[in-house]
C-alpha cells in the first residue's frame, strides 16, 4: 500500500473563522485550526461542545455558517463538484456509530467505496478488500453482516472501510465510544499503528484523555465551541490554562469529590 506524500510542510486542512449554529444555538464560534500533514491530531472536549460538528464541517458533511475549511489551501465551501469529489476520494470518515450499511456483508461494506467511487478493475478491488480485511483480522468474517458482529468487530470493519481507499486524511468521530478499557486501548493502538504504517493524516475526536495523549502528535481542546488549546501532548500536560487543567485533572477531581461525598460533605453545586 503506497503512503501519501507527507514531505510537504503545508497543512492539509485548515479552518479559518469557522462558525456553525443550529437555530439560535451557536455550536462553533469563529474557530481557527490547522491540521498538520501526516500527523495525528486529537480534539478533546466535553460532550456537546461541538467536536463532532467540527469534524463534520472538516469532512464537508455540514456547511459552515461563516468562515471556511481549506483543503491544501483551497476552500471546500466554494469548490466545484469535481474538486469536492477529489477531496472525498482522499478523505475518509469513521463515524461514531460506525455507519456500516446493514444490508451489505462485511466484504461488500469494505468494497463499497471502491466499487462506487473509483474506476479500479474488479481484481484490484478484490485484492484491496482482502488486504484490508486481513490487516484488521476480519478475513474469516467477510460474509457476515454488521448485525452479526460484536461492537469491536464493527469498529474494525468501519476502520477497514475507511482505510481501503488509501486516504490521505482520516477523520475519527469518537472511535472508542462505548468500548471497555481494553478495547479502547486496542482501537487507539490500531489507529496509531495504521497512521504510522499508511502515513495518513488523522483527526480524532475523543473523550479518552490518557489514550489520546499517548497516541497523538498534537492535541486541541474545545470548550463551548471555542478552541482553548492547541499544541503537543507535552505542552498540554504542562499547560497552566484553567480550561486545560479542568480536563487534565478531572480524574483527580473525581477522586477528591468522591472522598468528600463519603466524608458527608455537601455535593458540589455543578454536580447536584
Amino acid at each position, binding site marked *: 500500500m503506497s503512503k501519501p506524500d507527507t514531505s510537504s510542510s503545508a497543512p492539509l486542512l485548515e479552518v479559518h473563522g469557522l462558525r456553525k449554529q443550529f437555530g439560535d444555538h451557536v455550536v462553533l464560534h469563529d474557530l481557527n485550526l490547522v491540521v498538520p500533514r501526516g500527523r495525528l491530531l486529537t480534539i478533546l472536549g466535553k460532550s456537546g461542545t461541538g467536536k463532532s460538528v467540527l469534524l*463534520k464541517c472538516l*469532512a*464537508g*458533511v455540514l456547511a459552515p455558517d461563516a468562515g471556511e475549511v481549506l483543503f491544501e489551501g483551497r476552500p471546500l465551501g466554494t469548490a466545484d463538484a469535481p474538486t469536492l*469529489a477529489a477531496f*472525498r*476520494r482522499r*478523505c*475518509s*470518515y469513521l*463515524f*461514531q*456509530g460506525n*455507519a*456500516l*450499511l*446493514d*444490508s451489505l456483508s462485511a466484504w461488500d461494506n469494505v468494497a*463499497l*467505496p471502491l*466499487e*462506487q*467511487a473509483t474506476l479500479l478493475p474488479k481484481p484490484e478491488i478484490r485484492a484491496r478488500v482482502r488486504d484490508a480485511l486481513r490487516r484488521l483480522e476480519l478475513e474469516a468474517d467477510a460474509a457476515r453482516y454488521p448485525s452479526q458482529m460484536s461492537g469491536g468487530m464493527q469498529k474494525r470493519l468501519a476502520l477497514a*472501510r475507511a482505510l481501503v*481507499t488509501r486516504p490521505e486524511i482520516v477523520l475519527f468521530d469518537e472511535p472508542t465510544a462505548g468500548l471497555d478499557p481494553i478495547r479502547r486501548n486496542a482501537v487507539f493502538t490500531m489507529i496509531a499503528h495504521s497512521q504510522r504504517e499508511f502515513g495518513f493524516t488523522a483527526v480524532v475526536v475523543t473523550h479518552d484523555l490518557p489514550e489520546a495523549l499517548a497516541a497523538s502528535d498534537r492535541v486541541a481542546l474545545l470548550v463551548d465551541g471555542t478552541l482553548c488549546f492547541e499544541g503537543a501532548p507535552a505542552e498540554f500536560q504542562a499547560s497552566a490554562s484553567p480550561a486545560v487543567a479542568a480536563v487534565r485533572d478531572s480524574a483527580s477531581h473525581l477522586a477528591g469529590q468522591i472522598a468528600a461525598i463519603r466524608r458527608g460533605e455537601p455535593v458540589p453545586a455543578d454536580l447536584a
Partner: protein
Amino acid sequence: MLSATGRSTLRIVGELGDFARFTARGFTSAIGSRRLGRRLTRAVYEQGVRCLPVILIVGTFTGLVLGLQGYHTLKGFGSASLLGPLVANSLVRELAPVLAALMIVGQAGSALTAELGIQRNSEQIDALETMGIDPHGFLVAPRLLAALIVYPMMTSFFALIGLVGGWVSGSVLLPLPGSVYWSSVYRSINPEDVAQCIVKALVFGGLTIALCCYNGFTAHRRSTTTGARAVSASTTRAVVFSSISVLAADYLITSLLV
C-alpha cells in the same frame, strides 16, 4: 392569522419544490450510478415479488365482489350478460391501477421509507456522502426505476386476477355462461383503456415511490420528533400522502384522458 397562513403556504410550497427537485435528482442520478443492476434487481424484488401475494388476494376478492354486485344489479335490468364489460372496465380503467398502487405502497413503500429513515438516523446516508457516493443514485434511483417496471406489471396482474374473480362469481357461483362472460370481456377492452391503465400505473409508481423515498430520506428534518419516532412519523406520512396522491392523480389523469 394571516401571517400564520402565509408561513404555512410558504412551507408547503417550499416542500413541494424540494420534493420535485428530489424526484428529478433521483431519476437523473441513475445515469452516473455504478453497478445499478444489482440494486435495481433487489428493488424489483421488494416492490414486485414480495407484493405478489397481497395483489393476488386483493385482486381476487375485488373481482369476486364486482362479479357478485354487478350480476345482481344488471340482472334487475335484464342485462346480466353485460357483467363482463362491467368488471373489465371497472378493473382496467380504475380499480386495478388504484388498488395495486395502494397495496404496493402499504407493503413495499412503507418498508422502504422506514429503511431509508433508519439509514438517515444511523448516519449511513452521511457515510455514503463522505465516501464520494451519491446517496440519490445509490438509494433512490434504483427504487424509482423499479417502480416504473413493477407498477405496470402488478397492475396488469391485478386486472387479470380480478377478471378471473369476476368469472368465478358470475359463471361458477352464479348462472352466467362462461363463454358469454369472456367474449364480452374481450370485446369491451380497447387499446385506449389499456394505455390509460398503463399511464396511470407509471404515474402512480413514480409518484408514490418518490414520496416514500423523500419521506425516509428527510426523516431527520421532522421538526416535531427525532429518532425512532421520526422514522415512524415519516412512514405514516409517506403512506398517507402516497394514498391521497394516488386518488388525486387518478382523478386528474381520468379527467384528461376520458
